[in-house]
């Protein structure tokens, strides 16, 4: 090898292993500019500039949630979310929160079935601080015995309070177990007291070391940023964090998601207003049917002029409260409805009225004006996600983590807006069948 070729080879290797080279994968033109990059250690970075206000939002998300927990460790993902604020190598316990508070910033974290998100919004001149904090806890979280035990105990207290204060919680757990007959998908994110007690420091460390790695994470930064400067900062703080050699694949659903009709009664003495939960298993969120089901969600539930609100609450006064809509759990989705009534008699009438509204949608085309209305409402809610740095960052992160190709974001909204009334009838007949899941909620 001559000297010149050796120099080139060494310099190439240097840049590769110190992560000073990124591949710009794609750039979206609509609905707002964004770009996607990846570091050599596998960290995905999404950037989007918005100069309306001098703010920046940083979302650091990991592709792990409660569905990744094994039997006996329910609550692990949520426990780790809490432990992420308890200190890392260079940041003391709770100091992450204090650093953000001192500069007037806001932060939050959320664990769901398949992802855990940490996000903070600060004045844009404080971006280096947030990246320093996030990279430190990705790189070197402190997981000491006393901290883990203390956090477990706090979560067990929270769990006990939830059971005590919410008379409808048990019915929700029953409902989820019927709707999603697989432990990974149906256990509560907060976990169970028994499992939380049995989780050890070693278990938590293993979980952290397996999933909290750059090649299992996405970092999204939006707001008043300079793209090149931001990328340099990201390289500085994240490129030398080791990737995981082996991130286990995402769990797949092991039950039967197309079962027969199931009905059950859940009794809790503290319930004073009876009600019911009704669920329909629907298509995967990646299916084309999903766009039409999203419009049906708006047709039934969105706003005071929505079909079910108008019928059950305003016109017939059969429901004290009601709500519902589509719920996504990784690659599965269900349509859930919750109704509370004054008494057993009105509850039964409410149920009949609800089924009659569903049946009406199976047979009759919805009027054009109503279709335009739900499309406008959907469009409005969808675009609401673009106009603050935090909403935009969460929107981009969630879209990326949903397994969609982020380039598809350009035409995403149109897929919802081009549906027609006939398609609604077809989908209603396909998914809103007799094979529902129903849980009645009663007091004594």
């Amino acid at each position, binding site marked *: 090898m001559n*000297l010149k070729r050796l*120099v080139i080879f*060494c310099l190439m*290797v*240097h840049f590769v*292993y*110190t*992560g000073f080279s990124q591949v710009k994968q794609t750039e979206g033109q609509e609905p707002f500019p964004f770009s996607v990059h990846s570091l050599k*250690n596998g960290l995905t970075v999404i950037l989007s500039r918005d100069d*309306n*206000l*001098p*703010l920046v939002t940083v979302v650091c998300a990991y592709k792990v949630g409660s569905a990744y927990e094994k039997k006996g460790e329910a609550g692990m993902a949520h426990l780790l979310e809490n432990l992420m604020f308890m200190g890392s*190598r*260079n940041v003391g316990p709770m100091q992450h929160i*204090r*650093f953000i*508070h*001192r*500069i*007037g*910033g806001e932060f939050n974290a959320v664990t769901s079935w398949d992802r855990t998100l940490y996000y903070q*919004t*600060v*004045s*844009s*001149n*404080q*971006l*280096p*601080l947030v990246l*320093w*904090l996030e*990279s*430190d806890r990705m*790189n070197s979280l402190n997981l000491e015995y006393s901290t883990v035990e203390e956090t477990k105990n706090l979560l067990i207290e929270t769990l006990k309070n939830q059971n005590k204060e919410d008379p409808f919680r048990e019915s929700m757990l029953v409902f989820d177990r019927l709707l999603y007959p697989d432990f990974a998908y149906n256990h509560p994110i907060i976990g169970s007291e028994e499992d939380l007690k049995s989780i050890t420091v070693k278990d938590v460390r293993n979980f952290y070391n397996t999933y909290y790695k750059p090649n299992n994470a996405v970092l999204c930064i939006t707001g*008043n940023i300079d793209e090149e400067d931001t990328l340099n900062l990201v390289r*500085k*703080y994240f490129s*030398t*964090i*080791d990737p995981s050699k082996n991130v286990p694949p995402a769990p797949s659903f092991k039950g039967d998601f197309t079962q027969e009709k199931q009905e059950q009664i859940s009794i809790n003495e503290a319930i004073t207003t009876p009600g019911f939960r009704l669920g329909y298993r629907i298509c995967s969120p990646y299916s084309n049917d999903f766009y039409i089901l999203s419009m049906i969600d708006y047709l039934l539930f969105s*706003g*005071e*002029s929505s079909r079910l609100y108008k019928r059950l609450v*305003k016109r017939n006064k059969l429901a004290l409260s009601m709500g519902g809509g589509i719920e996504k759990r990784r690659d599965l989705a269900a349509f859930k409805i919750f109704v509370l009534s004054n008494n057993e008699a009105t509850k039964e009438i409410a149920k009949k009225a609800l089924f009659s509204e569903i049946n009406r949608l199976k047979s009759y085309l919805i009027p054009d*004006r109503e279709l*335009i*209305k739900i499309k*406008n*409402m959907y*469009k*409005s809610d969808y*675009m609401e996600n*673009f*106009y*603050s*740095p*935090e*909403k935009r960052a969460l929107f981009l992160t969630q879209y990326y983590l949903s397994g969609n190709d982020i380039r598809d974001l350009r035409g995403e909204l149109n897929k919802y807006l081009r549906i027609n009334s006939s398609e609604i009838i077809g989908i209603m007949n396909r998914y809103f069948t007799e094979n529902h899941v129903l849980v009645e909620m009663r007091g004594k």
Partner: protein
Amino acid sequence: MKTPMRPGKICVCVLLGLFIISFMTPYVSAQEKFRKTPPLPYPLPDLNFPSLESFILSNGLQVSVVQRKPQPFIDIHLIILTGESLSPDDLPGLASFTANMLFKGAVGLSASQIEEQIEYIGGDFSVSTYPDYSVFSITCLKDYLNDAVKLLGQILTQADFPKIEVNNVKRDMFYNIARNTNPELLGRKLLFQILFHNHPYQKYVFNSSVIKRLNRKDLLTFFDKFYIPNNARLLIIGDVDLSEVTNITGKHLGQWEKKNVETYHINPPAPKTKPKICFTDLPGADETTLLIGYVLPRDKTGNYFSYLVFNQIIGGSHISRLIMNLRETKGYAYWAFSGIELFGNCGLFSVKAKVKTEYLYPSVKEILKEIRSLTMNKIPNHEIEQAKSYLIGNFPIQISGHKEFSLKVSEIVALDMEDIFWKNYYENIMYVNSSAVFKAFQNVRLLNPVIVIVGDKDVVLDHIKEFEEVEIYDNEGIFQYKLKKVIENDST
């Protein structure tokens, strides 16, 4: 004898070394130097608000436009410059009742049809009434500005206040008040009632017994008198231009009839001459809620920013003095915060805390001690700078959503605060120093607080015996009796 290494060989060695270091870097346990300490911030960016452009229609309606591009929504706020303080003395709540009724029907349009029309344009609607004004907010998709303003014009010029909706709105208002068991809201009601006793702002809070006296006839009188274009402001924010707004508003709101508007001057409330402690019973309350309030003068000068910094230091966030003292150090409280509100003729500084009932008396003492200490002494510079840093960082977050932004602008317009808020917000905060805060509170003595305690009587009564005198109210705000401290004679 060693021979010197040839330059080519040196180069090779350096490159090999670089190669090895590069390969090892990610795997060595020693951390990079930059990880050890937090990085310094970049220079503070500018906070630039888009300009507020205004014009007046021939009927006297002042229209203000803020252009924000690109934005697919339009936020429309109609501000009626009369609030609860001008409700008749025997009918507090009439301003709220009128505001709640406005979108409940117009000639040829039922309440449901109005709701449907707003949802059809991808919009939503809300109404709020304050002591000095009411604001009606409509958000819609950009393409429907004309429809939204047309609907607004139709409602304002043809409102018919259907009798069935009068009953529905009264029922909703009644249950919202009667079923309210939120200790903070109950406490706030009583705080307002006592702080603004015999002042028009007292009408901002009213109890459920008033609702049955509200009627359509009084509503129509109030509507005719105050819902007139020359007593209103219209604010439109979004991706619009002035000429488009001029055309649309002229077309749909130009017919709104101008009338003579009476001007009312409301004096600031008289300062309290002695502290007052009040208790209201909330059976079954787990812990005790505490509210402490002082009236501040309305200040259109730089003192406002001194108040903000002061508030930040004492209780504006999770790292302020109150929470550090009462929760972290002494363990008396679950939380303790403070806030500043501005009204047309005065302001309100208040502290709110949830305390462990057994520590009620020492909690009050500590809060008053903190307030006294901050107003009587110069605040250390590091605390001032810390508070300013928080305020500068947090203000843009508070207005980062388009609705939050437009609501802030509507408050600024309604309370005539454009000069202090719109221009140089950051600079105004930066100029505050220890002396400025000290000086501001030399003029405003926080000496005579109104203290409101909300809790379960069976538990709390034992703990309020420490106070010299406590006035007991029921949870509708009706005075019951006074409780005085028993001074035991020493028989020896």
